[in-house]
Structures are given as structure tokens and as C-alpha cells.
């Protein structure tokens, strides 16, 4: 095990897979010479040459489309989109091509296309550079949606992404690049569909992903001091989702809070809540609560930006509410 930054763990994954598989290549804006805005691809141009590490013009629809085409033709493209917000320019290629090709070809065509990008709020970059758009990809059948919260997961999931055959929306978080964590030595792969219990607990299940994981863990630590035992589940991949891990935990704790940075309406948290409704209802001692962003674009002003996404006090309050609901409440209705 070594301590690595999230961005360095991502680079290790790319480096190892590029060395292993000559069809892996990377395209994006400023990712070659400049090494990318977050330095994830630094050094790869020197190592793998301008054929496999290419800068592009500002052409998100084209880059994504070209990546999808290259994947269909048997290569393993990694297309880096600077901000997930800009992926909206390539939605047709993601929704109508990448996600559908396998079905449209009766299962024969595969699209091992990876879009690496980052989202989330981050210090005043405002409405068009701060979104958490995972719900849009989550809804489209055929896409895999990956949102690592730690360096180890980032590395392991990216390596797995490069060895499977379906289109992957690999969504990083601008706040996580400089965070550190232990990463196993040697070959380290994290398969899709396996959640991770970032903290075991028995009183309440909290589900969080991406940058909400570290935030939730701090809250869990605080609450532990008050004698409340919080289990924190990080699904790591939203599609496929580790339903079993979630439902087992909820069956145990009988209470659940879901934390997402994205705005509340129609987010992934809603879907997880609806799954627990259908499959875990009879286990629940309290309604599943969602802590989420406000239903607005992110404002520029820093205080408002922070007010627009979940912060620790809000997460803590929701957990407390989930715990303080007594069976009496049922009688009171």
C-alpha cells in the first residue's frame, strides 16, 4: 500500500492499461502537452507518444462521437471532457449511439468507450461548470456510471472500465483530485457493481457517493462520539448498483438517509429511495430521507453555492431525524 493522490491514482490506472493494451488511447482538450487541467494525464504523452495521447479542438460532440466510433471499431478510447457540463454537447452520441448500439445490433456490437470527466461544485465556477449530472446518464439503459470517492477506487474502477465492453461514464469530482488515500500495490482492480462499506455501523444506513462520501464520513465520526453508529455505503458504481448491499444494510439498520450533491428532483437518490420502497418497505422504521442539492443552478456567490449543496449540518440533521422517529409516529397519523 502507498498513499496516493486521487489524480495520481487515475494516472497510474491509465498508464498501466496503456502499457498493457495498445488499443487504449486518450483524447481531450489540453490533455497531451499540458497534461490536463487536473494533471491526470501528465507524462503520458512523453511515454506513449502523440498517436495515443492527443489534444483536440473544442469539439465535445465530435470527440465523444469519434470515441464511440473508435470503440465500435475495436479500440479502447478514453475521452476526457473538461467539465461534465460540456458533455451536454455530446449527449446525442452518448444517448443515441453509445448506449444503444449493443441492442440495435442484436448484441453483437459492443462499445468499450470511456468518457472521463469531472463535476460538482468547486469554489465559484458558477452555473455552467458546477453540475452533478450523473442522473442523466443513470437513466439511459446501456451506460455504466462510475463515481469513485477514493484514490484506490478511482484506480481500480478505471482499470476495470478499460477491461469491460460497455460505455462508461467515469465521473470524477473536482474537489477530490488532490485528496489522498492508500492504494494497494500491484494489480488493483475494482469490479463494477460492488459497493463498499466505507464505515460499518448498526443504527442507520447512509448512502453517499463521490465527494459526499468524505463529508458523510466526518458526520458519522461526529455522531459516533454521541453514541450513534452510522453505516456509510458508497455504491462506487451507480450503474450497475449494488442493490443487495443497500437492501441488506437497510434490513439491518431499518433506517436510511441518502446524500447526493446533485439537486433533489429526479436525482439518483430518488431512484435508490424508490428501490428501498419496493424491496425494503417492510423493514423500514422511518421513511428514507434524501439530503440533496437545491433545485436550482449553482450560483456564483460562494455562500450561496454552499447553501445549494449538502453540508455537514444538513446531513447530520437528516440522520437524527431518521433516528428520532419512534413507532409512536405511526400511531399518531
Amino acid at each position, binding site marked *: 500500500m502507498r498513499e496516493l493522490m486521487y489524480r495520481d491514482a487515475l494516472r497510474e490506472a491509465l498508464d498501466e492499461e496503456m502499457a498493457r493494451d*495498445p*488499443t487504449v*488511447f486518450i483524447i481531450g482538450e489540453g490533455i497531451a502537452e499540458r497534461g490536463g487541467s487536473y494533471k491526470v494525464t501528465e507524462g503520458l504523452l512523453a511515454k506513449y507518444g502523440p*498517436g*495515443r495521447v*492527443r489534444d*483536440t*479542438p473544442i*469539439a465535445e*460532440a*465530435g*470527440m*465523444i*462521437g*469519434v*470515441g*464511440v*466510433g*473508435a*470503440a*465500435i*471499431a*475495436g*479500440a479502447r*478510447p478514453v475521452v476526457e471532457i473538461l467539465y461534465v457540463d460540456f458533455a451536454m454537447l455530446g449527449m*446525442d*452520441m452518448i444517448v*443515441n*449511439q453509445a448506449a444503444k*448500439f*449493443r*441492442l*440495435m*445490433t*442484436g*448484441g*453483437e*456490437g459492443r462499445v468499450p468507450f470511456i468518457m472521463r470527466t469531472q463535476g460538482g461544485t468547486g469554489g465559484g465556477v458558477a452555473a455552467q461548470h458546477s453540475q452533478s449530472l450523473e442522473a442523466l446518464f443513470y437513466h439511459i*439503459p*446501456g451506460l455504466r456510471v462510475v463515481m469513485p470517492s477514493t484514490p484506490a477506487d478511482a484506480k481500480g474502477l478505471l482499470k476495470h472500465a478499460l477491461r469491460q465492453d460497455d460505455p462508461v461514464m467515469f465521473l470524477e469530482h473536482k474537489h477530490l483530485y488532490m485528496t489522498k488515500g492508500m492504494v494497494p500495490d500491484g494489480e488493483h482492480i475494482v469490479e463494477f457493481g460492488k459497493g463498499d462499506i466505507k464505515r460499518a455501523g448498526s443504527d442507520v444506513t447512509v448512502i453517499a457517493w463521490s465527494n459526499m462520501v468524505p463529508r458523510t464520513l466526518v458526520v458519522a465520526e461526529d455522531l459516533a462520539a454521541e453514541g450513534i453508529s452510522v453505516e456509510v455505503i458508497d455504491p462506487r458504481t451507480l450503474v450497475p448498483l449494488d442493490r443487495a448491499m443497500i437492501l441488506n444494510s437497510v434490513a439491518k439498520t431499518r433506517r436510511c438517509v441518502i446524500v447526493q450533491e446533485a439537486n433533489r428532483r429526479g436525482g439518483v437518490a430518488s431512484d435508490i429511495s424508490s428501490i428501498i420502497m419496493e424491496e425494503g418497505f417492510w423493514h423500514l422504521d422511518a421513511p428514507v430521507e434524501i439530503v440533496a442539492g437545491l433545485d436550482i443552478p449553482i450560483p456564483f456567490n460562494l455562500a450561496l453555492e454552499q447553501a445549494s449543496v449538502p453540508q455537514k449540518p444538513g446531513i447530520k440533521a437528516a440522520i437524527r431525524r431518521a433516528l428520532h422517529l419512534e413507532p409512536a409516529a405511526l400511531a399518531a397519523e
Partner: protein
Amino acid sequence: MGEPNAVANAPSREILEKIFRTAYKIRVFETEGIKLYRQGLIRGYFHPYLGQEGIATGVCAALKDGDYIASTHRGHGHCIAWGADIKKMVAELLQKETGYCKGYGGSMHIADIKTGNLGANGIVGAGIPLGVGAALANQIRGSDAVTVTFTSDGASNNGTFMESLNLAAIWDLKFILVVENNQYAVSTKIEESTRETDLYKRGLAIGVESHQVDGNDPLAVYRMTQAAAETCRKGKGPVLIEAVTYRHMGHHVNDPGKYMPEEKLAHYKSRDPVDRARADLKDMTGITDSEISAMETEIAAEFAAAVEFSVASPEVSAESFAAFAANY
């Protein structure tokens, strides 16, 4: 998928015959397919390639095994010219599991990855970035394969056209963009969609070698594609070919095409690409009428056999679909 032929003035009999057979096969497929549609055997969309046969035919005859194509919503002709199995095409249109896509895809989505056919597409213009992507994959793996995307006048006004072609240009990809300018997008005339109806000029504006050709002249298309493929294989980057043509009927099986002026339609019908291919074959090889008749009969029989095969094929299996869907 043609032979690896150098540019030549007099094409071989083999090529001439291949061009005629292909053009005629498309003609039969579309003409008979429309009948199946009217009988209710085919559902959904069906955009006939009638009148444009010269383009797919000429282009594909100039390509090699290992090359790639990407197609449009009007894709039957490209598929046939690429050498597709007519049985599997008809079965697909009849929604059978024996079809190219198990009946899951349909007319607008026939593809055959194994042979480098990246497929038809229901999104106008989408084949362009996909084709450029295949060309990029081939460059990265050091292949000298050329990728052709067939596209349309309508697509030329969509952002994806210039954006993708520009990527092919800066990376010197082995990519040929064939713009089938049939002068309409459904009922909208090209003059209403753009001030500059010479579409090849768009390629010039971003430094791409670009040409215009008579799309109803299969041999001219063939020769131009040969030259373009050579340019590509030399590493000089993409080539754009605008092939001017006209549909023989409306946009879709059910479109009467009343907006197409009679004289113009008559003009283009008098320059029918299938007739032209037949005439070229006769003039340049001295082949007899009865030999040609024999070919035509054979092709018609192949189609009839494909229909028989498809009708006899079992319906799709709900179970295998459920299994497929469960891990999509």
C-alpha cells in the same frame, strides 16, 4: 468490398460486372422490399435508395477487404454494395432472429461489425463522427484501412459534419466522406437549407481535399473513390466527395413525393444509374443481353429466396430477449 485495384482508365470486366450486379441487386431489393412493405410484412421506417444506386455501388467497388463503412437512415444500398447477405437483411426487416440484428435493429440500424460495416443510423449525421472514430482506431493500430462514411445533403447543415471532418483533417485520417446530395431533406429543398448548394466547398474551407461527382455515374464514382482511397492510404488525410443525385420517389415508402417537380424527376430517371451500369458493362466488355438477363434472373431469385428464408424463420424468442435485457 472490391479488389485492391490501382487507378486505371479502363476498369476490368470483373469490376464492371460487379458494379452492375450490385446496382441491380439494390434496385431489386428496394423495389421488392417496397412491395413487402405494402403487404404489411415490413413495418417501421423504410427509406428507399432507388435512384442513388450509383453511389454506394461505385464507392464500395473501390474499397478493399478490411476497410470500413458507416451509413445513413437510407442504408440498404450501402449494406448491399458492401456485400451483405440478402437473407439476413430481409430477415432483419421482417423482425426475425435470423436477421443481422436479431430483429432488434430494423431498417435504420442494420450493421455488421465483423465485416467493418458500422451500420445504418437513425440520427442524421451521426455516421460522420462514428466513421472518423473508426478511422482513428485504425490509425492507432497502424492499419491502412480506409473508412467511408456515407452521408447526406441534410447532414451537411448539421454541426457534426464540419466538427467531425475537421478532426479527421487535423489527424490526417484515412477517411472519405461521401455526401449523397439528393437535393432534399424529406420535402425541404436544398436551396431552402443553405445558400451554398455546392456542398464540397465546405470541405475546402477547412483544408480538406474535396470534389464533386455525378452520383448517377457509377464508374465516375468508382474512379473518384479509388483516387480518394489512394490519397488516404498515402497518409494525406481525408477526402470529401459530393455525389449529386436524385431520389426516384418520396423520402419514405409512404411519401408520395409530390414536391418533386416532374421534369426534374424525369431528367434524373433518364440518367438512371442502374441503366448506366448496364450500359457501361455492355459497351466496355461486349457482354451479351442474354448474359445480362441471366444475371438479373439470378439476382431476382436470390431476393425471392431471401424472402422465403425470412418468412420461414422463427419468430424472435421472448426468453432469449429477456436474458439479453437482464444484463443490458
